[in-house]
């Protein structure tokens, strides 16, 4: 059954996917460590802490030290996952990640909950809108966000397998579970949910679901949609973007500032190829605030309706 025919009913935060997967990984591989920074409860690492205390460290409220300590662990062959919120994991420890993780290309993973607008009621201070952009500009760093619980688990497992720094971003709030648990994902490779010929929608993270719903509506109106889940914005699957240029009309959707995230990454390829047109749907270069998650998305035009109308406008 195609994803388009499936009714999505279950919702789960993708941080749960991280929390569940990391325990499995840690049991199988004693070199996997979690470095917590006093938000383990919220980042879902408490089971890891309980079951695998020898592979767990809690540095207290000291992000910079957490990043440096993880780098030190990695020099001895450990595979540390630093667990914190996306704002702190991308900004408070940005320079430590640059100097001690990316510059020496150490095997450290930065696993962050509270990506985008998903800690909705925490307000703007806790909503990371620029994290993926910041981290994609560091050499050696890979930047990944799964679209649901299952894909997050798969991507976390794969991040542990591949050598080098990976930034993994999760949602705090519940989002629809769209994939089957057996679905496979490859870091750096776009997941094509559906092929089509009139318009391409490239989404990632919690907005893949919106793309999916928009695609359903557009298909009903006879518009053929190609839909990609671009869970990895770096390295970007350039080939997948270039293939969209056969259609020529692309809409990107992301729960991130439209500056420097998925939309920017796709636009870079499109501009270099010199053909095609892109419309970016995402956070409108403004900070968030406390509100229901859906309301925040709406304020930024990150909605099914806006994807549909943007598609129609492009097809005019």
């Amino acid at each position, binding site marked *: 059954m195609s994803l388009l025919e499936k009714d999505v009913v279950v919702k789960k935060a993708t941080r749960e996917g991280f929390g569940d997967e990391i325990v499995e990984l840690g049991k199988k591989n004693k070199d996997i460590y979690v470095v917590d920074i006093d938000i383990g409860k919220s980042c879902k690492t408490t089971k890891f802490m309980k079951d695998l205390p*020898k*592979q767990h*460290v809690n*540095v*207290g409220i*000291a992000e*910079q*030290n*957490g*990043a*440096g*300590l*993880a*780098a*030190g*662990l*990695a*020099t*001895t*062959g*450990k595979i*540390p996952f630093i667990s914190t919120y996306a704002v702190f994991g991308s900004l408070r420890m940005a*320079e*430590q990640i640059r*100097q*001690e993780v990316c*510059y*020496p*290309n150490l095997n450290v993973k930065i696993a962050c909950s509270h990506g985008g607008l998903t800690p909705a009621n925490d307000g703007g201070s806790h909503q990371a809108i620029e994290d993926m952009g910041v981290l994609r500009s560091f050499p050696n760093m890979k930047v990944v966000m799964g679209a649901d619980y299952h894909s997050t688990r798969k991507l976390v497992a794969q991040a542990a397998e591949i050598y080098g720094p990976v930034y993994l971003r999760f949602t705090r709030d519940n989002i629809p579970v769209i994939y089957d648990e057996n679905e496979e994902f490859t870091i750096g490779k776009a997941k094509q949910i559906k092929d089509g010929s009139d318009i391409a929608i490239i989404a990632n993270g919690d907005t893949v679901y919106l793309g999916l719903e928009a695609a359903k509506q557009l298909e009903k109106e006879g518009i053929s949609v190609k839909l990609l889940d671009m869970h990895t914005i770096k390295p970007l699957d350039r080939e997948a973007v270039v293939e969209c240029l056969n259609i020529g009309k692309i809409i990107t959707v992301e729960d991130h500032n439209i500056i420097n995230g998925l939309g920017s990454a796709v636009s870079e390829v499109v501009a270099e190829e010199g053909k095609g047109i892109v419309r970016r749907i995402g956070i409108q270069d403004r900070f968030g605030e406390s509100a229901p998650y859906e309301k925040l998305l709406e304020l930024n035009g990150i909605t099914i309706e806006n994807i549909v109308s943007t598609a129609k406008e492009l097809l005019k």
Partner: protein
Amino acid sequence: MRNTSIEELKQKAIELRQTALTMIYEAQSGHPGGSFSAADVVSALYFKEMNIDPANPKWEDRDRFVLSKGHVCPIQYSALALLGYVPYETIHTLRQYGSPFQGHPDMKKCPGIDISTGSLGQGLSTAVGMALAGKRDEKDYRVFAILGDGECQEGQIWEAAQTAVKYELDNLVVFVDDNGLQIDGTTEEIMPNQDLEKKFAAFGFETKRIDGHNMDEIAATLDSIRGKKNGKPTCIVYDALKGKGVSFMENVVEWHGMAPNEEQYNQAMAELAGGLK
């Protein structure tokens, strides 16, 4: 640990200074002041104390060395060159394109560098990570770190310090090079550190203050903490002179990051040849 005599360690400390100065002179850039203040401790660590194997720089059970004040890498590079981690001629390539001797230590480019540093305040955290891994893996290796006194103005140093105490890292030995100078002036003028030994003691370290240019004292201190297993990390604050060994450099702020001209170089090499005063 090797049985190197005090006399030999003193001689090595002079050679380290001369080699470092030659590098900096030829490159016409680098940091002599803080290299010289650390030279005696570096000599004791590399030529006696540390369990290392220059032929096998990635040996799992080696002691680790973290130069948290990474700008003084010429002194560490000198040790690596003298011990044969790299061909001795590498000393003529400091800060050049393609050289393992980058402007600041780069573990990807230079054998014997256990962690890349250069951004102050971060090295101690990485040392804590290495020491913690050693504990968890029940290994016997130790981790030695050298910090600048100015560097201790960085908050992250104290984040790392409290972590070392929490995890009972008695396999961690932290040296603080208390030379009293930083870039813009004395630490007293720029940001008074108060008593760094007391600060580390308050965090839960076992501490000691020694003369960082007295080889007998350095060696005796290292003797006294070898094999220590009491659950407490060690901090040795050493009193030092920036530029130690060259009369016109000693305690002069400007020699933090300046290369000598030919005349200065020759005079400095001659003075060093006469040993420490």
